[in-house]
């Protein structure tokens, strides 16, 4: 059971600016009726939405902070408050019956007071028709309603939804601070360097490191990557032999593709010498990456990066992981062999 103190404390470290902003908005009574919270997983979107809920419902607000101990705060923290409607995807998407439930709730009065709050987690996982169905309710809610749509990928949201909400960008947590966080949690420096581009949350990071999964994945990816850039046909085989076995569930598959995208991002960064070397994801391979960029043209790098980014979208469309990676490998060869 998370108390508000813990909630406010995490928010104060993660998003102090946004916390202060919302404190001010609520004090001025200027809360809009729909918000889109966008930012990386772990950047504090659900925490902020819950904090706002507690702030609005709490019986004893002190200095613009909910006390976290009254029954309203406790019930919100437990997820048992009937006027806070939370919907999260079960599996790959938010189902039709969940949206039906949401619509029914949008049209009914509150159970206890006169205020209702809707929290839709991973809102980009609504199907287009589901999202369209919600438009009307988000646009002109009846009664005293505030909706929070949380998403890690604003690009996948319908533009019509975005235009009807106030978009709040959650900046990624300060990488240096995050790395310190990870190192404090007992994560080795090279991994702590790599993790910020994958996740902002320490618990998720520890899951990735469980049973040494992440270092193995990075090593295997690197081997594949070297073969790909040299245009070796072996790399196609490597997908099945080395990579597919490592990516057992949907989460691991996404992380693998994120890592590939991060690799190309590093290449781009080195090529254009944008940032200091410490910001790289794959510091341990910096030497190899630097020599590589010298052989490649900007055009090649951009093309390859684009391919790596679309791979993740393909996975979201239920194309099997092996197909996605093999397709990527085949598409990358011509780019690098024409060098």
């Amino acid at each position, binding site marked *: 059971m998370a108390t508000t103190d813990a909630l406010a404390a995490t928010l104060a470290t993660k998003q102090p600016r946004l916390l202060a902003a919302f404190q001010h908005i609520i004090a001025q009574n200027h809360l809009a009726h729909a918000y889109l919270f966008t930012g990386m997983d772990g950047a504090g979107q659900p925490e902020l939405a819950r904090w706002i809920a507690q702030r609005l419902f709490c019986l004893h607000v002190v200095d613009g902070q909910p006390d976290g101990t009254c*029954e309203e705060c*406790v*019930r919100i923290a*437990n*997820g*048992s*408050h*009937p006027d806070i*409607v939370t919907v999260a995807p079960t599996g790959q998407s938010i189902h039709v019956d969940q949206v*039906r*439930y949401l*619509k*029914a709730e*949008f*049209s*009914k*009065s*509150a*159970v*206890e*007071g*006169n205020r209702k709050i809707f929290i839709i987690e991973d809102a980009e996982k609504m199907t287009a028709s589901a999202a369209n169905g919600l438009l009307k309710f988000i646009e002109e809610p*009846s*009664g005293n309603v505030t909706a929070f749509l949380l998403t890690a990928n604003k690009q996948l949201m319908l533009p019509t939804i975005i235009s009807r909400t106030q978009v709040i960008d959650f900046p990624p947590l300060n990488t240096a601070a995050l790395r310190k966080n990870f190192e404090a949690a007992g994560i080795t420096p090279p991994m702590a360097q790599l993790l910020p581009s994958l996740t902002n949350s320490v618990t998720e990071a520890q899951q990735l490191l469980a049973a040494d999964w992440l270092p193995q994945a990075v090593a295997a990816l690197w081997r594949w990557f070297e073969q790909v850039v040299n245009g070796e046909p072996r790399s196609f085989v490597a997908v099945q032999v080395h990579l597919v076995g490592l990516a057992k569930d949907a989460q691991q598959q996404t992380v693998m593709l994120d890592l590939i995208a991060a690799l190309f991002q590093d290449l781009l960064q080195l090529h254009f010498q944008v940032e200091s070397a410490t910001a790289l994801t794959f510091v341990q391979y910096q030497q190899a990456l630097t020599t590589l960029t010298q052989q490649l043209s900007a055009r090649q790098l951009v093309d390859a990066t684009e391919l790596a980014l679309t791979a993740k979208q393909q996975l979201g469309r239920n194309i099997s992981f092996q197909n996605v990676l093999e397709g990527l490998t085949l598409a990358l060869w011509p780019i690098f062999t024409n060098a």
Partner: protein
Amino acid sequence: MKFTINRSAFIKELNNVQRAISSKTTIPILTGLKLDVASDAITLTGSDADISIETTIPAVDDNNTLVVEAEGSIVLPARFFSEIVKKLPEDTMTVNVEDGFQTQITSGAASFTINGLDPENYPHLPEIDTTNTVTLAGDVFKELIGQTVIAVSTQESRPILTGVHFILKDGEFLAVATDSHRLSQRKIKLPEANNADYDVIIPGKSLTELSRMIGDNNPDVQMRLSENQVLFVLGNTSFYSRLLEGNYPDTSRLIPKESSTTVEIEAPALSAAIERASLLSHESRNNVVRFSVNPSDKTVTIFGNSPDVGEVTEQLQPAELTGDELEISFNPDYMKEALRSFGQAMIRISFTMALRPFTLVPTEDGENFIQLITPVRTF
């Protein structure tokens, strides 16, 4: 918390409360039943967030043989608790909350210990003041619900139409429901409620559930209103329902004032004929029957067909027929449900044009109950 009670008296109230409890709910605590024990009564509460039912068992009633030893509250898993209570061996049972939320239920030699939940986490029912109270006879209210709920929409695209619109103004109580294809409206004069003023939309589902609770012993129903919920009080039982939010469409304009053709006929006879015609129309793609009024020989012809199966014609002799010749087509299911709500009465059907809605009213007291059906264009 500890009390002893007569089991059959308890089961009777438990069954009432259980109507509100649903096993599929998003808030886990709502699968539970809340027990509040005070020195002079115990209160049972069940809720699925949309409706909540609260019932009180007073200690003064000797049939209950209620003995309270310690006051307190607990939430118990409703499904298990009710099954346990129904299967206990003796006439009385004792419920005792021990340390924490562990609850012991004993009766004779049987003893159950089940895990309860924190009553603090249970949703609070709104406090509703008694100033804006309307009292209706149980059977009248049940009839009103039955007559209007049939026209409630089941489409989720316009959630506001899934409710019945209740308006109380100037001592007149008006209930309207429409799904935009048909409309049903009922008025009741309530001279004693002159100063009360309502304008609310109550979900059709809640009303259906409420009408099931109004038993045959015809208790008076008191209706009270708060900001977000409506409360119906039936004796010791309180029935809360959430309201639908939004603006209900203005339905008063929809009802035509004049008519060019009127037919008076017995509702059951017409209903039976429509039923026969719908046997075939159900098979066809657009499910309509044709209704032709022939003033020259004072007959009405009902015609239904299905291109695949065949066709049916039936000629009726209405009691009264005036006005112009007319041919109109409509969905027979709407007609059947509307006719059923009139019972055995004689009704008057008033048409204006083939493509304009027509109305059905009882010939006696036609002011207070009206059904409206929109025809179907067939050409």
